[in-house]
Every structure is written in structure tokens, then in C-alpha cells.
């Protein structure tokens, strides 16, 4: 952990409440986010127990499966979920603006600009915890290879029509969530712990209730006390006062409440199937009982997630977070196009080129995120200054110099007095950058003066004339902040086409990869 964050944690311990780690909001927050609180059944892979979904905090859609091991009930659940979630995701698909994208011309091999369209906005999904993001991925994987009755009439267990599509979107969101700085699928705990440091460890910050307790403790209590209550407090029946944010449930809840309720539901169904009458009142009563229990577990997490959104909304948005959101919009538009073009679902495993591309993207975006957060936020910049990757100070002198050419350009020498210790070495001729109206101006490090002042030579953004444009050269007494890192991230070298994958990486993908066999189905189980 960087020393500055450690310091914030130490201060939080003393203050009894969380301390800011950022002064602006570094992630895009949609005006209309879709909150998804899923719960899963212990021991089963991808067997949901229920979910709360919605964009209105007062009216979540409630989905509960009274018997999670029942395949038909699960399909019905996923079909309902698909209708509701896809309606939200697809609502953004048709509102587009013209945009340009550079592509490689297949004939000439040159980069050319192509007119295309970009969705004006994209959906944002917020889940309570990091485990929720993984669960969205898992659900995506469990659904995207399913076959509907139209696709495969002989399938004994056809999936409802919208389910495979939801699987593809969930997979896309899950992949996108691994890109640093992306905001299409985010978790409340990650968002909060990016912006606040609590007086507990990283591991304990994974508990949404405890995290909120530190950030916004109830009146008259310290964050530590409130967090402890959220973590461990139990009522007289041994149930947690603040149920876990899921998707896993508390074992005590499973064993004492849920298992008997599900057993009663099973018994009522068996009695209905065996008995002479067709009075399903018992079944419906038992179903309502399970539903009440599960909703009760989810609703406090639902409220907590919205509370987290409120806390984040109160922060002013970071300037460059919007630029990163535009990348999310591109990603959304791209996947929309692939779905519309009838492309098959994402493969089980990426081929070598796609995998390398994804890794390269994540690395580039990480560099971009680090730079942009520092530029948007003096507190993040302070961390970079502490690490010697940036320095701030006052301009103590400017000497005008010019290049020696027919049309001399300005190359002024600027002396900066700073208390920071940038990692610059004499003779290294390292480049440094500062933000000038949002664009990077570069300068070359010349030398350290004897009293530790830094002498720089400005290199660009001063206009075409002999004299620099007004405002482009700092003046004596100005406060400036220079960074040793570039302000924009450069992508890596271009990768070959998948058909030209070198043998060191498995060679071109075989034709077998194109066939997506559905997962095996067994009788005992489920999906």
C-alpha cells in the first residue's frame, strides 16, 4: 500500500471515521444506474437464490427461487431476469451520435478514418461487492452457451429465448470490469474503498456494511464500533443484523431459516403432486415464506448499495473520468454491433491474440488511469510527488532562449523551486510534463541548481511565432506541477491477425474453436 494511503488509514484509526483518499470522484456514475443484488445457493455453481434489480431505490424488482435446485424454476428466474436486465441494457443501443474511428485499410495497410456511430450513453451496473462482479461473470458463462428451442429443437432442456443473450452481455460486462478505470460494471465496495481509507485492513473493507459504517457512522458511534456491529452483530435468533452483501449467504441463515423453509416448500409440492386435490394454497404459502426470508436478506444490502451511490454522488466528478467513460461507451457500442451482426458467443477460452490484446489493453488503461487520476486530484498527485514521480513548486525565474535555425522557436529556461525530491538525474535529459489547459506541455530537465532548484527547458505548446503565445510560458511566482510520467498512455506494438498466430503461441486457432458445444446436463443437477 502506498505510504500516503497508509497514513490516511492511521488517521482514520485516530479519528474514528474514514478519511478521504480522493478529493474528486474518479469513476463515472450514471444518472440511472441499474443496481443488482444477487444471492446464490451455497455449494452450487451458478444456482441463484434470488436477486433484487432496479434503477429505482424504492421499487426493486424482486426475483426469488423457492427451490434453487429445480431446473424449471431456475429457467423461469433467469428468463425474468433477462427480460428486465436486457430492457435496461438495450435501452441505450439506439441513441447514437456520429463518430470517427481509425482502422487499418485491408488493401493498402494504412490507417484511415472511418465514419461510424457511437452510443450517446451506456448502461451501468452496480453490484454490492467484488464477489458480485465475479458472480455476474459466472452467470454469464453459465448462460451464454445455452440453446433455445428455436436454435436446437431437439434439446430436452431448451433455455428461454432471452437467456443466452443475457449470458453474452453479462460476459461482456464481466470482461470489461477487469479493465482498470472502466465503470460499466462496478462494485460498491471497490468504489468506496477507492475514495475513502478506513481504520481497518483491506480485507475487512470487503464487507460493505463495515465499510459504510466507517465512512458514515451513525450519530454517537465511532466508525470502529459501528463496523464491528455490522460485521458481527447478531439478533436473539443468532442471525446477522447486517446480512452479508452476497452473493454467498450466512451459513447460520441457511441452516436455521432457509433450509427448513425450503423443506416445507418441497413437502407442500410433493403433497400437491401426490394428493387428490389441486389446491395449491399450501405451496403458495410456503413459497411466500421462502420469498420473505430471501428478500429480507437482500434488502439491507440493497439499501447499503444505494447509500454508497449517494456518498459517491456527493463528490465532485473528476474531469477525466468522462473521457474514460467514453471508452466504456465504445466498448458497449462494439458489443452491440457484434450481437447485431449475429456473431457467436464469446469462446470459452480466448485465442492467443485476443488474450494478448486484452492484457495489453488492461496495461495501457492502468497507465492512463494512474496518470489521469493524478492530474484530476491533488491528493493522488501528492502520492506521486512523494514517490518522486512528480514535483510541484514556484517558478523563480524565466530566461528566454530560442532555437538556432532560420525561423527561431522559443525554448525558454524555467527555474522551479520545490521541496519535493523528483527522481531526476543530471545529464539524463529526462522529459517532464505539465497540464496546460488540459493538454500536456513538455519540457526537458536541464540541471539542478546548487540550492536544489530545478531548471527546465520548455519544448512545445508555445505557438508558431518567434514569441511564445501569452499564457504558454509560466511566469515568476506561478505555482506549477510537473510530472515525470506522460499524461496519455501509449498502446503497445500491433499484434498479428489471429490467422497469423506464431507457433510459439499455439499457431492459428483451429476450426474446432468455432463450435460451441452446450454444457453437459446431468439428471441430479441443474443447469
Amino acid at each position: 500500500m502506498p505510504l500516503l494511503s497508509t497514513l490516511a488509514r492511521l488517521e482514520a484509526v485516530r479519528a474514528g471515521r474514514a478519511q478521504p483518499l480522493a478529493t474528486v470522484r474518479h469513476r463515472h456514475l450514471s444518472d440511472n444506474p441499474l443496481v443488482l443484488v444477487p444471492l446464490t445457493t451455497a455449494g452450487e455453481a451458478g444456482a441463484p437464490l434470488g436477486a433484487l434489480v432496479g434503477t429505482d431505490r424504492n421499487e426493486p424488482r424482486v426475483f426469488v427461487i423457492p427451490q434453487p435446485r429445480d431446473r424449471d424454476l431456475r429457467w423461469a428466474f433467469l428468463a425474468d431476469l433477462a427480460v428486465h436486465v436486457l430492457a435496461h441494457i438495450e435501452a441505450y443501443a439506439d441513441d447514437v451520435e456520429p463518430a470517427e474511428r481509425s482502422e487499418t485499410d485491408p488493401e493498402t495497410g494504412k490507417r484511415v478514418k472511418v465514419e461510424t456511430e457511437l452510443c450517446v450513453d451506456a448502461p451501468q451496473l452496480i453490484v454490492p461487492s467484488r464477489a458480485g462482479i465475479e458472480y455476474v461473470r459466472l452467470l454469464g458463462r453459465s448462460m451464454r452457451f445455452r440453446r433455445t428451442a428455436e436454435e436446437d429443437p431437439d434439446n430436452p432442456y431448451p433455455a428461454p429465448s432471452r437467456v443466452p443473450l443475457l449470458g453474452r452481455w453479462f460476459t461482456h460486462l464481466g470482461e470489461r470490469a477487469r479493465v482498470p478505470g472502466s465503470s460499466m460494471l462496478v462494485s460498491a465496495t471497490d468504489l468506496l474503498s477507492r475514495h475513502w481509507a478506513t481504520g481497518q485492513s483491506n480485507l475487512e473493507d470487503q464487507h460493505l456494511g463495515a465499510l459504510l459504517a466507517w465512512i458514515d457512522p451513525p450519530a454517537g458511534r465511532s466508525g470502529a464500533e459501528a463496523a464491528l456491529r455490522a460485521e458481527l452483530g447478531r439478533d436473539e435468533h443468532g442471525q446477522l443484523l447486517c446480512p452479508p452483501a452476497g452473493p454467498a449467504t450466512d451459513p447460520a441463515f441457511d441452516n436455521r431459516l432457509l433450509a427448513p423453509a425450503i423443506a416445507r416448500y418441497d413437502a407442500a409440492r410433493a403433497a400437491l403432486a401426490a394428493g387428490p386435490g389441486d389446491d395449491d394454497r399450501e405451496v403458495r404459502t410456503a413459497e411466500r415464506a421462502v420469498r420473505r426470508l430471501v428478500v429480507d436478506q437482500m434488502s439491507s444490502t440493497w439499501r447499503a448499495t444505494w447509500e454508497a451511490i449517494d456518498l459517491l454522488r456527493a463528490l465532485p466528478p473528476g474531469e477525466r473520468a468522462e473521457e474514460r467513460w467514453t471508452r466504456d461507451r465504445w466498448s458497449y457500442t462494439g458489443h452491440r454491433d457484434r450481437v447485431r451482426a449475429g456473431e457467436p458467443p464469446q469462446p470459452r477460452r480466448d485465442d492467443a491474440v485476443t488474450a494478448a490484446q486484452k492484457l495489453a489493453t488492461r496495461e495501457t488503461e492502468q497507465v492512463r488511469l494512474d496518470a489521469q487520476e493524478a492530474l484530476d486530484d491533488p491528493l493522488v498527485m501528492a502520492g506521486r510527488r512523494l514517490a518522486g514521480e512528480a514535483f510541484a513548486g514556484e517558478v523563480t525565474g524565466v530566461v528566454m532562449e530560442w532555437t538556432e535555425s532560420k525561423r527561431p522557436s522559443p525554448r525558454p529556461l524555467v527555474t522551479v523551486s520545490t521541496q519535493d525530491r523528483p527522481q531526476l538525474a543530471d545529464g539524463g535529459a529526462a522529459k517532464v510534463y505539465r497540464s496546460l489547459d488540459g493538454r500536456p506541455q513538455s519540457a526537458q530537465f536541464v540541471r539542478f541548481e546548487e540550492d536544489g532548484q530545478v531548471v527546465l527547458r520548455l519544448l512545445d505548446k508555445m505557438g508558431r511565432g518567434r514569441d511564445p503565445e501569452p499564457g504558454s510560458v509560466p511566469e515568476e511566482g506561478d505555482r506549477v506541477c510537473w510530472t515525470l510520467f506522460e499524461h496519455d498512455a501509449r498502446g503497445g506494438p500491433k499484434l498479428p491477425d489471429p490467422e497469423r498466430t506464431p507457433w510459439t503461441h499455439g499457431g492459428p486457432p483451429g476450426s474446432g474453436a468455432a463450435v460451441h458445444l452446450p454444457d453437459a446436463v446431468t439428471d441430479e443437477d441443474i443447469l
Partner: protein
Amino acid sequence: MPPRPLDARALAALAANPGCGRRALLDGAGVDKNALATALGSPAAFGQSQFAIVRGNSFEAKVKGDGGAELLRLVHAHLDAAAEPPGSGALVPDLTAAGPEGRAARTALALREATSAKDWTLLDHPMLALEVAGTPAYLEPDAVVVHPDGRWTVVEIKSFPMIDAAADAAKVGAAARQAAVYVLALERIAGKVAGAEVGHSVLLVCPKDFSNLPTAAAVDIRRERSVTRRQLDRLTRVEELAAALPEGLSFDPERPAEELAEAVSAVDAAYAPECLAACELAFHCRERARAADEVTALGRSVRGELGALTTVEEALAAAAGAGCAEDPTAAALHRAARLRAEALELAAALPRPHVPESPACPC
């Protein structure tokens, strides 16, 4: 109160925090830490959902069903494809005996017989003995398979899924550490049996994708084995720990909480937040660590970063400027505090855009 025997899970957790004398002593003495933690007023939050238990048991029964044919097929396919495939009549010796000592002896005998029989043999829930820090521990792996060439393979059956031939790394890691303990115990027996050798790859059997069908992967546990062996050897011997304790110390959960807390604090602990996932006493130790203002409560990395500054007060004093001259960590912390204050001041001075208040949640 009967002593609680050490199990593989406890040993693996112990090996993960070898510096913790409290855990070594209590485990070595067979104290029921769960009851102790409850008596101390910080009960552990461990427990397993009955859904998971039912599912795990039914999966294990399925894997071992039909005389272990499927399990042997998986071992053959993943670890010993060159050998003769197991026939339908593989040996499954009966391992029942009275008490753990009896079962361990019966297991050792069965292993010896199976090795000389030169045929595929499945040992279902054998019992292995391993001496840890001077205390015998009895371990029960899911299964051990003896190959025709005399190799012994540990099989771990887990109910987490292997999706697209990949499983949750954290869970695989825990399974590998657990299997390493079994391998160590088996090696003690194999040393006395001619022609026997313990395989350094164990077979991890999991449900395939979202189904109930078993699939398997060989997991090389050489690293875990050597780490665990080193940690177990390093464990302070329980007698040495006990020798340093006052006479008449008792961890009887019937005693009042204050007396118990005093007894527990007579043994040093090495608390870190990672303990919360592994040790029943972790909440008690955390409470103590927080009360003592220890920085380790914020994480091992924080502790490592702050060096000699072991309490929150010391660290904050350093941030305020104390002791900067002699300690470079203190100086760095002081600089960090200055930069942080400057940045917060700067941000507070910036004009804030108007943010509309969101309506309060009525629920």
C-alpha cells in the same frame, strides 16, 4: 473435556502463520478454540451451510461410487496414462478399526499390502498419523490411490466447480496446502515400505462446469509440500511454549471471561487480518491488537512499511514530526503528512460544483 485432534485444515492454517505461539499452544494442547472464543465473548463466524455439505457429500459419493471405477479412471488418465488401465475389480480394502490409532495402523497395513499387490488400489478415507510439534495429529484424506508401480497418490475431492478447466485460484491453493500435509504424512509411512513412493502431484477432483459430473486436474504440490514441511518443523515445540507459562494455567471455557482472557494473553499471538479467515480466535486477537494500538491490525503490508513504528500513536507522532532525524521511515511519513495536508487544503480551496442533494431513502 476431551482434546480436539489436529486436522489437516488446522495444520495448513498453522503453517500459514508459524509465528503465532498462541495458536500453536492451543492447537497442540487440543483446546477447543471455538468454545474458547465463545467463552471469551468473540465467537468465531465459521460454519458451513448445510446446502454445501449435502452437495459436497453427494458429489463425493458419486465420484467414489461403483467401487471407485470413475476415480481410478481419472487418476489413470491424469497421472499415470502409461500404466495398465484399472480393471473393473480394483481393490478397495476395508479400513475400519477402533479409534484413530487403530485406523492409522490399519491404513499403514493396507498401504503395505497394496504396494506389494502391484495393482490399482483405492483407499477410501484412510487415517494417517503425523507428529506435529510433539503432538500426534490424525489426518483423513478423501482418498489415496496406490498405482501398480507402487506410487501413492493423494486425491482431494472438492465441490467447487472447475469451469472451462479452471477453478478458483484461492480455493485450489487451499486444497493444495491441505494435500501437502497428507503427502507429508504419507511419506513417513512410505519410508518404511519397500518399493513405495509418494507422488508429488495430487489429483484434484471437482464438478465439471455447472454439472455434477466429475473432472480432475493434477496439481503439483512440491512447493506447498516444502513450505509446509519447513513451517511445521519450525513450529515451536508445545513443551517449550508451555514451559514458559505460569503454573496452573487453564483454558477451561467454564471459567469467567476475564480469567480466560488473562490466560490467553499469557501466550503471545501474531495477529494479522488474514487470521480472520482461518482461526477461531481471530476476533479476540483482533480486539486485543486494536486495543494495543498495533499497526498490524491494518494489515501485514502496513506493518512491513512502517518498520520500527509498531503502534498507530507512534506512527502518527512520526507523521507530526517526531523522530524524523534518526528514522528514515519517520521522515518519509512526515513528508507524506505534509503533502497530504497541502493537497487537502488545495482541494478545499477549489470551487465545488453544485451537487444536487439526492432524496433520502424512505425505506
